[in-house]
């Protein structure tokens, strides 16, 4: 069954996108990641314009993070103050990112930039996650328990001014690092069509030393608001949010995510994290392959941006 997508201007099979939404939704619910880093490349591979994929994916991330954010909030796993600080940085980053998308599209280098960003970040995150999960698995086999947090360590971050007290996270740190992290993730999210959880979560754990129990909730909280802003910005600046496509992805995604969330609670972590890392690296290699191998068609066409 085909449906005509009004902004992407193509006829698409409903079930392909529903299925893609459900599969990515399941994984994202399971690992507590937004799933944007899988969904956006998949959309691009399936023939959707990169800019439309990025804009539409922002809307879908809103949908997939809403229920998670609310659930975490009810379980009191959100550090609202930290979230607001991250969020203020995130909005600034998002504004910059959307402008950057506009400029890069005019220059015809948007696809390249998206690909390079994906290869870089998926490569780093995938490798780190792979190493971490392998280490955990080895240590678990050796019978040791591992904790992610190493409290009591001080770094240069603690020497910065503008200190704030974050009660929920039991932290007393400068507001500058969270602001910068928020801005960076917001900008990346706008360009790559991701929520940025896969950068936000490690950054909060390793750089800010936020306790792991509030990390997921707080990052979801800030992702929800930043992607909302990003969606609106993409819609106004680039006209690249396809609501029909977004709704298909949402329907598949939210259903998949519900099952995935329960699965994440019930299933063992390390092996699955290992698999996710493998998947991330695979997507990374696939995008990198397209950049390196001589394409069968060297030419490409595009209309003028906004020329409707």
């Amino acid at each position, binding site marked *: 069954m*085909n449906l005509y997508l009004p902004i992407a201007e193509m006829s698409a099979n409903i079930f392909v996108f529903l299925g893609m939404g459900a599969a990515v939704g399941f994984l994202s619910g399971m690992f507590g990641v937004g799933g944007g880093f899988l969904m956006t490349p998949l959309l691009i591979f399936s023939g959707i314009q990169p800019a439309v994929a990025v804009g539409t994916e922002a809307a879908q991330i809103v949908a997939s993070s809403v229920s998670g954010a609310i659930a975490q909030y009810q379980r009191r796993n959100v550090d609202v103050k930290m979230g607001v600080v991250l969020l203020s940085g995130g909005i600034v980053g998002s504004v910059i990112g959307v402008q950057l998308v506009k400029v890069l599209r005019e220059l015809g*280098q948007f696809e390249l930039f998206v690909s390079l960003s994906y290869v870089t970040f998926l490569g780093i995150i995938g490798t780190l996650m792979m190493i971490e999960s392998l280490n955990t698995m080895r240590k678990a086999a050796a019978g040791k328990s591992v904790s992610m947090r190493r409290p009591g360590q001080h770094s240069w971050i603690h020497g910065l001014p503008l200190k704030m007290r974050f009660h929920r996270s039991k932290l007393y740190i400068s507001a500058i690092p969270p602001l910068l992290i928020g801005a960076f993730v917001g900008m990346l999210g706008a360009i790559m069509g991701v929520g940025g959880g896969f950068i936000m979560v490690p950054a909060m754990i390793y750089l800010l030393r936020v306790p792991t129990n509030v990390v997921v909730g707080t990052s979801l909280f800030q992702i929800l608001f930043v992607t909302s802003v990003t969606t609106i910005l993409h819609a106004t600046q680039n006209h690249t949010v396809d609501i029909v496509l977004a709704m298909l992805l949402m329907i598949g995604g939210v259903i998949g995510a519900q099952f995935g969330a329960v699965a994440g609670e019930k299933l063992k972590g390390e092996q699955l994290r290992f698999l996710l890392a493998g998947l991330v690296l695979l997507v990374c290699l696939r995008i990198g392959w397209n950049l390196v191998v001589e394409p069968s068609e*060297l030419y490409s066409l595009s209309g*003028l941006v906004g020329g409707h």
Partner: protein
Amino acid sequence: MADRKKLNDATPAAQPSPNGAGVRDRVVQTTRTVATTVRRALPELSPADMGSLLRKRNLQFGFGVALVVILIAIFRFTGDTKPVPPQPAVPTAPAAPAVVAAPKEPVVEAPHIVPRLPGETAPAAPLTASPTVPAAGSEAVEADVSTRSVAITSNFSGTEIVVFGAVDGSRQNSPEAGLYDVVVILEGTHTPIISRRKSNVAGLWINTQSVRFASLPSYYTISATRPLEEIAEPAVLNQHGIGFEHVRLIPAGWMAHGLTADELKSHREAIIRLKQKDGLYIRRDYGTVFIGRSLFRTQIALPANVPVGPLDARVFLFREGRMLSTFTTKVNLQREGIEAFLHAFAFEYSLLYGIFCVVIAVAAGLAASALFKRGAH
């Protein structure tokens, strides 16, 4: 659309069409069976069942399925990003009489009209001084289209338009005489377009060269009674912009500087090639057929990805390499219903549209968590 479905139901496996439509049909069949099963099972489902669904084994299975789907998605869409299978350029009109009821005559096999006496044809060697001035003969062409207005709605998946017409004062004795040549062009609005070329920079394939062309038809189908080269001289075709090679394709001013003629030429060829690959530029050498002494018709496919905008149908009448007459008519191609609404909403009230998208997204997320909370916990 409805026709096609009926056709599939009648002969599900008997059409291994060249575009891989056979595979598609099978997928459609499967999904339909699944859909009916789900529809039957749904009323019997209670929220408690949802909870029992989430057992460890099922979840592991679900995880496996999700991985497989994603792996397939990553490697299936390797590079082929064409949204529609290209129209096979068969000379005969495909049998789809239900779509258009315009001329009821049986479709004439095109090859009938091909053979001509060699002496007669001699594709208009340097004939007369001014080949474009309509000849003294009183022949004129008149034409119309089967559908004046095509609506793009949410289930638009391409359509077909029949262009038919008559040669006024035809002197040909039979449809097969081949005295006249008719060229029908259906073209979309002219828009500027940018062509980019990748080249290898430090191991990466990067867009390095771009040419902006001021005006290019977004869609262009040419359907003629014979290959164009046999109908008229390139100069004549060029003058009227008939044929892919003769479409006016001028680089916009300063954008072309620094390019050699060869590079410009390969950009031009690439544009035509890419447009053909997308199914937007179609050439059918024997697509137009005479079905009477003066009556001719042709069937033109509008693919699902046809750019929205008015289309011009231009009909050219040739005899012995000289253009006798032309006729132009219009086809309106516009969004209708929810498509029109959403597009206008997105482009004219983009801020509201953005907020609307966010509201929809939030509502979808909330609805899902409300729906599943009862079952899961």
